[in-house]
Every structure is written in structure tokens, then in C-alpha cells.
């Protein structure tokens, strides 16, 4: 009997192949959509982490309370050994000093007199150490409009808009006026190595990137840093970051020195917490809507499959099969199809997501210009949820469709099912 039913299932494509394709396609799309949305969300979080927040950040307790002002005089002293210690304590993580500063760029003429002056915001990061990941974090290679990356501490990168406006080119020198650690004036000469684009008009109007060593020297900040940014090996992970920050802060629990190191998480900064939660909620909502739509489609497919077969059921009843046996066979068929469809859908969805995660889609070509603030490659991100987000609705809705359409077998009188045999 079972062989008989399976044979019927295999031979009748509209009963097997079509629902199978519908189910597995729906499940596949759900899995890919989920991974893709998760990927896009984490991509934009990463962008933020790379430029400003890090996955975590260490600073002095005092600095952390007025972080928005970035007061250099509240910097961590002994930052180099702290960085070393952090790298050692938390395997796989990377820790970097960053100094953000403001200043005036003074462009001299041939005689060395001021030709023009413009305000800049500045970032200093590790550009020169071998194997530094900072260049990648700022996507400097691709954001370069002209010239090259700095090769020496006295070279810097200016935004292209600024350089054009003040008529300063590659190889030209300029003077940076800024403040030292103690608050006195600092003057340092730099040579323009290249020009870049951030992709934000406000920043592109005037920004400067220099090596961290140069900044330390000009601001009198050797071995100190206002902020040490920490990065996990892979993308942001709330749990890991919580563990590390709790562990780190517990070391200083009984220390009430206002200059004690203090670690904050990405979600503690600039409203990132609500952005993280919000984007997760949006992602969940979108997937929920899609899963809902898919369920309705699969359910209807199951329903139609059942209705279409009323004449077959009529014949089987006439032959002396019991209603309950027919109903059961309908549901077993749906379970079989739902299972196979959901498994193949999940596997193929994971396959596509994996490809999108590893290879990504290079979207930099879609933009007129590459820039620091645009993700270059859109990637999917496979999470555990991808294993069940398509599978469960795929299976449940297929089976539910059969369960509900099958109720019709009972509701209808035998003679009515039978009537449908007469054409």
C-alpha cells in the first residue's frame, strides 16, 4: 500500500514535483533573505566600528564621561603596554591606539608665507606598522583619489575636496596647527602623500589622516592615547564583547582613580545600542513578513493539492478505503514533501548564502566613487537562525495546508465526494 502511494506520488508531478519546487524555493529564498539582511546590517555596524566606535573601546574613566569632547588631557598614560596586555589577555582580538584631533591646515606659497588656511578634522591611526589592519578598516586604498598612502611619519592624506579648494597637491607641504596634550599650541609640517574621499560632504570639506606616531610626536603624547579601540577577530558579537568588557572592568573594580582604564562596548556609544536593536528588529520584521507570505503560498499549494484530488479520494472511497486512511495518507505525503522540500531549500539557501558570505557582491562599482563611508562589498552573514528560519515554516505550512484541505474529506458527505466523480 505504501509503495502504491509513493508510486502515485512520484508519477503525479503536480502532487510531488511542483509542491516540492514551491516549498524548496520558498525556503531557499527565506534563508538567503535572512542571511543577506543579517549581512547588510552587520556590514554597516562594522563600518561604524571601524571608523569610530571599535567593537569595544578602552579609555580613562574620566575621559569616558566627557567622551564627546575628546579631551586629550584625559588620555591613558602607558597606552603601549596596555595595548600589549589587551592583545595578550584576549586572544584573537586586535587593539589599536587612535587620536582624533582638530586643527588648522596652513598652506604656504613659494616664499613660505601663508597662502590659505582651512580647518580640518583629523584621524591618526597606525598606517606604517607592518601588517596593520587600520588601512583596511578605513578602506584607504580604495578611497584614494590621487597620490599614494603615506610611507613616512611626516606624510599625510588630505580630502580631495579640501586639496582642490586650497590648491594643494601631491608632494606639497603644509603646516598643521593643533593642540598638544597639555593644551599648548603644536605646529607640525606634513607632506601630502595622497588625497582621499570619505563619502560624507561634511567630512570631505576638510579632513586629514596621519600616522599615529606623527600625532603622538606633535601632540606630545608618546605612550599615551585618548582611546584604544578593540576589534574582535570577526564581526561584532554582543556576547563576546560583553564577556571581554566585564572581565576587563572587573580588574579595576576596587580602583577609584579617575584615570583608571575603563572599557565600553560598541552598543554603549553614540546610540549604537538602539541602532543595533532597531536594525535587528527591522530584520526580524522583514523576515517575518516574508515567512508569513511564504507560508500562505505553501499552505494554499497544500490546499489546492488536496482539493484537486477530491475525485481520486472519491474513487478510493468507492473502492472501500476508509476516510481516515485517506486523510492520513494525504498528511504523510505532505510531511514527506514538506521535509524533502524544506531540507533541499535550506541546503541550497545555505549554499547561496555561503557564497554571498565568502565572495560577497562588489558594490563599489555601482557607486560613482569609492569612499571610506560606503561598504565596498555587500556580504551575507549566515547565523544559526538560517537553519530553521525557512525549514520550520516550510514544513509546517505544507503540512497545515494538507491538514486543512483534508478536513474537507470529512466535512463533505461521502456521497458528495462521490458526486464529483460524475462529470
Amino acid at each position, binding site marked *: 500500500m505504501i509503495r502504491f502511494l509513493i*508510486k502515485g506520488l512520484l*508519477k503525479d508531478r503536480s502532487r510531488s514535483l511542483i509542491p516540492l519546487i514551491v516549498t524548496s524555493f520558498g525556503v531557499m529564498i527565506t534563508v538567503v533573505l535572512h542571511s543577506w539582511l543579517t549581512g547588510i546590517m552587520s556590514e554597516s555596524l562594522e563600518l561604524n566600528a571601524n571608523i569610530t566606535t571599535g567593537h569595544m573601546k578602552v579609555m580613562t574613566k574620566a575621559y569616558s564621561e566627557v567622551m564627546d569632547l575628546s579631551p586629550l588631557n584625559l588620555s591613558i598614560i602607558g597606552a603601549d603596554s596596555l595595548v600589549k596586555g589587551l592583545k595578550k589577555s584576549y586572544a584573537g582580538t586586535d587593539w589599536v591606539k587612535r587620536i582624533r584631533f582638530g586643527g588648522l591646515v596652513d598652506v604656504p606659497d613659494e616664499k613660505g608665507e601663508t597662502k590659505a588656511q582651512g580647518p580640518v578634522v583629523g584621524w591618526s591611526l597606525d598606517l606604517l606598522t607592518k601588517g596593520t589592519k587600520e588601512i583596511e578598516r578605513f578602506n584607504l586604498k580604495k578611497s584614494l583619489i590621487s597620490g599614494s598612502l603615506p610611507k613616512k611619519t611626516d606624510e599625510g592624506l588630505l580630502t580631495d575636496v579640501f586639496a582642490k579648494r586650497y590648491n594643494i597637491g601631491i608632494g606639497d607641504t603644509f603646516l598643521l596647527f593643533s593642540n598638544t596634550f597639555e593644551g599648548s599650541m603644536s605646529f607640525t609640517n606634513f607632506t601630502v602623500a595622497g588625497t582621499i574621499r570619505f563619502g560624507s560632504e561634511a567630512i570631505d570639506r576638510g579632513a586629514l589622516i596621519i600616522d599615529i606616531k606623527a600625532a603622538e610626536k606633535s601632540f606630545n603624547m608618546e605612550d599615551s592615547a585618548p582611546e584604544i579601540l578593540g576589534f574582535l577577530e570577526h564581526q561584532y558579537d554582543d556576547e563576546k564583547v560583553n564577556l571581554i568588557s566585564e572581565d576587563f572592568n572587573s580588574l579595576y573594580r576596587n580602583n577609584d582613580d579617575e584615570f583608571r582604564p575603563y572599557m565600553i562596548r560598541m552598543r554603549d556609544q553614540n546610540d549604537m545600542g538602539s541602532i543595533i536593536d532597531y536594525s535587528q528588529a527591522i530584520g526580524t520584521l522583514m523576515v517575518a513578513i516574508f515567512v508569513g507570505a511564504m507560508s500562505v503560498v505553501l499552505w494554499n499549494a497544500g490546499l489546492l493539492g488536496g482539493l484537486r484530488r477530491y475525485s481520486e479520494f472519491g*474513487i478510493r472511497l*468507492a*473502492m*472501500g478505503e476508509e476516510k*481516515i486512511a485517506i486523510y492520513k495518507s494525504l498528511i504523510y505525503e505532505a510531511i514527506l514533501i514538506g521535509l524533502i522540500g524544506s531540507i533541499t531549500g535550506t541546503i541550497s539557501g545555505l549554499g547561496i548564502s555561503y557564497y554571498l558570505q565568502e565572495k560577497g557582491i562588489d558594490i563599489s562599482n555601482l557607486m560613482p566613487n569609492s569612499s571610506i563611508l560606503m561598504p565596498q562589498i555587500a556580504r551575507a552573514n549566515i547565523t544559526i537562525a538560517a537553519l530553521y528560519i525557512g525549514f520550520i515554516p516550510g514544513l509546517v505550512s505544507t503540512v497545515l495546508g494538507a491538514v486543512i484541505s483534508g478536513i474537507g474529506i470529512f466535512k463533505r458527505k461521502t*456521497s458528495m465526494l462521490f458526486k464529483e466523480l*460524475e*462529470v
Partner: protein
Amino acid sequence: MREAIIRLESVSKLYPTGSGNFRAINNISLVFTKGEFCGLVGPSGSGKTTLLNILGSLDTPTEGTAKVLGRDIGKLTHKESAQLRNYHIGFIFQTYNLLPVYTVFENVEFTLLLQRKTAVERKKLVMDSLEWVGIADKAKSMPAQLSGGECQRVAIARAMVKRPDIVLADEPSANLDAENSIRIVETMKQLNMEFLTTFIFATHDEKVMKFLDRIIHLKDGMVELDKIINKTS
């Protein structure tokens, strides 16, 4: 007198309609005996199909009692009525109603699967009944490859394979040409004589009628005339 295998006593079937109940069968009392070859004739809407459905335990009478092989149709459980159909009643339809995805052999075999017969038994019984209707050579064909007459033969084989007591046939020749109609009825008549299976037809077909040994005329759900044509015993 042969043994009575179906007894209807004051059977009525009422369908609820907008304006009260409609009597599709109205107070019918009839007895059918073993080995009868009997036709229900009458205009469209006279209640032929309704009556066959009650005899086949696909429907129940609203009033009166219908006893088939001693069982009260109105009181059977789903399981009992399925059993009755599975072992004792064969059906033949106007539109053949073969399962399109199965071969001729499998279509006929299905009833026996429900009876949990072994593969060897099934093979023997199926091939025998295909022999009776003269299409054993088409056992492996699909229904779509057969002519209408051949399909109806498969349907007869399917009804006969379980050696039922009763075969109910609703307009079995209505979709067939004259020659095929006659051949089909001849085949059924032969089986009727050989196995003493009771055949009850609903039919309009004059060609069929001359084979019948009893004709029951229905009109508006009532028996208008019950005529025995040539008594065979």
C-alpha cells in the same frame, strides 16, 4: 425464489432546499435477489443515482431502512461501510474514473491492496479479472492509452476483481458508442451468469435494456413500474 440480498423498506431521501425539503427518493420499497440483472430507468432527476448511492452505502436514507447483505445502511460506522464496499460491492461509473497515474493492473489491484492480499494472490486475481473482460494484454498500459470501451472494461475488471455480491453501475454505457455499449453489457451479463453477481444499473440506454431481466421505472423519486422480463429460474 432466490435469496434476497437487498431490502428497502419505505426508503426516502430528503435534501434540504431553500423552500423546505426536496424528496429525491420518495417512499421506495424494493427487494433485490441474488443474481439479478436489473436496470433503474427514468428521466433525469428521477432519483436513480441517489438510490444507487444508498445501495452502495455512500449515502444513508433519511427515512425507512435499507438493508444490504443484512446490514442496515443507516446504522453503519465509517469503518463498516468501507468494509462493505471493499469486500462486497463493486462500482462502475459513466466516466470510468480510473486513477490516471497508475497502470491498468494497478488500478484493478488497488481494492486487493485494501484487503491486504499477498502479491501472489493479487497477481492471480487481477490477471483473472482482466481475462474475463478481455484486456489482459493491456495490463501494463496507462489509462490514457486506452479507448473508452477499454477503459470501461478495466472499470468492470476493477469492480469484479474482489468477486463482489453486488455491482452498481451508473450509466455505464452513456459515454460509449453502440457497438462498445453492447459488448460491455454482454460482458457484464456473462459475469452475472457465471458468478451470480447481482448487477444494478442506472441507465437510459435502450440497447442495454434488452439484456435486463428486470426493469424498475422511477419517476419523481418513486417506483412507477417494476417489471420482471424473463425469469431465469
